[in-house]
């Protein structure tokens, strides 16, 4: 982490040396003079990239703040203790991608319990892994979409998107006939009777690229492609830098500027860690092909809601699936194919 001739601090992400460095500048010896490691040091003195830096900066504040709040609170009951215990563990947990199955289960349990402590309601969260021999793909029939936006509604409800800021992962673009796919001139926020004369409709969302540029640029590896092809985000690892948003050529990502809030009775309780769980403020969100549904064999909410059948979802590795038939028998294309991002989202016409 330390480089003698460097005068600035940089996060050495790619090649983190396996030395116990604490950031004080001393490679040898010790900076605080302690010889044995207590529990705190065991946690703090492990070289683990970016988090380590944040920990060092914030742990102090946290401990201070925690001490103040616990000493001042009149009712520091068992629940409060449990709450802060959960908060502590959640704060220092690792990257989901590197977690063992047990650790995944533990964090899911913590999040479930924490929700229960906060709201008194139970949620059903899983960390179900990708199925073997599954690669998800999506097809969109431009001739069929009528611009009703039923998919947008379904997506908002399914994925617990913030109601106040009207966060939406799906956009439907109204395009004029005869102008090609002109996104500059298209309208993605129309409100009049549809389909409008002389227009056609085209939906976009995250295309789950097989070679996703958004994943490459993430400085903390908070976003990655799963085995079944779904590009996911660990909301607890994301630092909200929005590099990925800038790297995505398809406007697939959405940054939340405020804590997503959903009226309690509207919260979708069937959740996945990498999917529709209630996120914190200041992280990246996007379509996850409804990972909480698709990994169970179910269709994403948008596919289910579409009344025209413009949306098809399925397993690209199953030669008998509808999506495969479309790819093999219709004239399909993808957006900005020349970029080499290999989106797994195809468009076709009747």
């Amino acid at each position, binding site marked *: 982490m330390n480089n003698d001739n460097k005068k600035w601090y940089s996060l050495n992400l790619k090649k983190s040396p396996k030395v116990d460095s604490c950031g004080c500048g001393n490679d040898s010896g010790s900076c605080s003079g302690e010889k044995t490691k207590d529990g705190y040091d065991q946690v703090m003195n492990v070289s683990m990239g970016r988090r380590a830096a944040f920990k060092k900066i914030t742990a102090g504040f946290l401990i201070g703040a925690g001490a103040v709040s616990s000493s001042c609170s009149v009712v520091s009951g068992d629940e409060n203790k449990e709450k802060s215990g959960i908060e502590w563990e959640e704060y220092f947990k690792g990257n989901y991608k590197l977690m063992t199955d047990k650790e995944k289960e533990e964090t899911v349990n913590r999040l479930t319990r924490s929700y229960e402590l906060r709201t008194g309601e139970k949620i059903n969260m899983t960390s179900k892994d990708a*199925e*073997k*021999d*599954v*690669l998800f*793909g999506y*097809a969109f*029939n431009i001739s*069929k979409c*009528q*611009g*009703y*936006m*039923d998919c*947008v*509604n379904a997506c908002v409800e399914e994925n617990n998107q913030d109601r106040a*800021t*009207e966060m*939406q992962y799906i956009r*439907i673009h109204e395009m004029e006939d005869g102008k090609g796919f002109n996104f500059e001139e298209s309208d*993605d*926020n*129309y*409100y*009049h*009777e*549809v*389909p409008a004369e002389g227009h056609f409709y085209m939906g976009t969302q995250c295309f789950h690229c*097989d*070679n996703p540029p958004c994943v490459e640029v993430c400085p903390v590896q908070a976003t990655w492609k799963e085995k079944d092809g779904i590009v996911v985000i660990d909301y607890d690892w994301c630092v909200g830098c929005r590099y990925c948003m800038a790297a995505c050529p398809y406007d697939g990502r959405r940054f939340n500027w405020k804590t997503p809030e959903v009226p309690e009775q509207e919260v979708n309780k069937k959740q996945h860690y990498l999917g529709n769980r209630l996120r914190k403020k200041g992280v990246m969100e996007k379509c996850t092909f409804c990972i909480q549904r*698709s990994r*169970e*064999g*179910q*269709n994403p909410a948008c*596919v289910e809601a*579409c*009344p*025209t*059948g413009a949306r*098809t*979802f*399925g*397993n*690209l*590795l*199953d*030669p*008998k*699936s*509808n999506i*495969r*038939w*479309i790819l093999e*028998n*219709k004239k399909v294309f993808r957006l900005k194919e020349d970029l080499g991002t*290999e989106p*797994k989202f195809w468009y*076709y016409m*009747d």
Partner: protein
Amino acid sequence: MIQKIVVKTLIIVIGLFVISCKHSHENNYHTVTDKIEAKTVSPENLTITSKTFNENIKTVKFAEDGYEFLIPERKSQITSYNCTECHTQPIEKLKQNQVGEKAAHWNIKLAHAGVEIMNCATCHSNGNMDNLHSLTNSEIDFNYSYKLCSQCHQKEFKDWKGGAHGKQLGGWAPPRLSNTCVNCHNPHKPAFEKRWPVRFNTQKVKERQ
């Protein structure tokens, strides 16, 4: 000397190839199409199923031209089926409605092709009312009404069989259960209607002002 040059160029070429093919470190496929082709499995080996999501839908089987899937059963969904519960006699012998009295099925207005091309009798038979009939008068069960539609809509029929037209119900995983024609299209008025979008994003408007 020449050998040396050959070896050197070979090394450079191989080196360039390794560096330039960015995808190769993760897997050996250049495009996702290659990947799909290489990793395709035979359908018998797929374990995941969507059965639980369609359990409460009564189905019948579609099996034609090498395609096999389920479609929703229809007859139990038609309110006044069996037709012969009312239609005990041929149409001509039915009581004529009096002035001011509404005829049966008064609410059905046919908007399908034109009047010169279609009327009730194009699909409904006067003989066995409980069945439909084709253009050449062979009986068609209500559960398999796609056979009627496909007489004219051949292209849609082909796309529907494959999965490019229509809608799969429940899940993406097998067994496939797809809506049949009349589940999405009202056969008497098959076109989709104009309507207002279900939502309007007021925040987007503010943001873009």
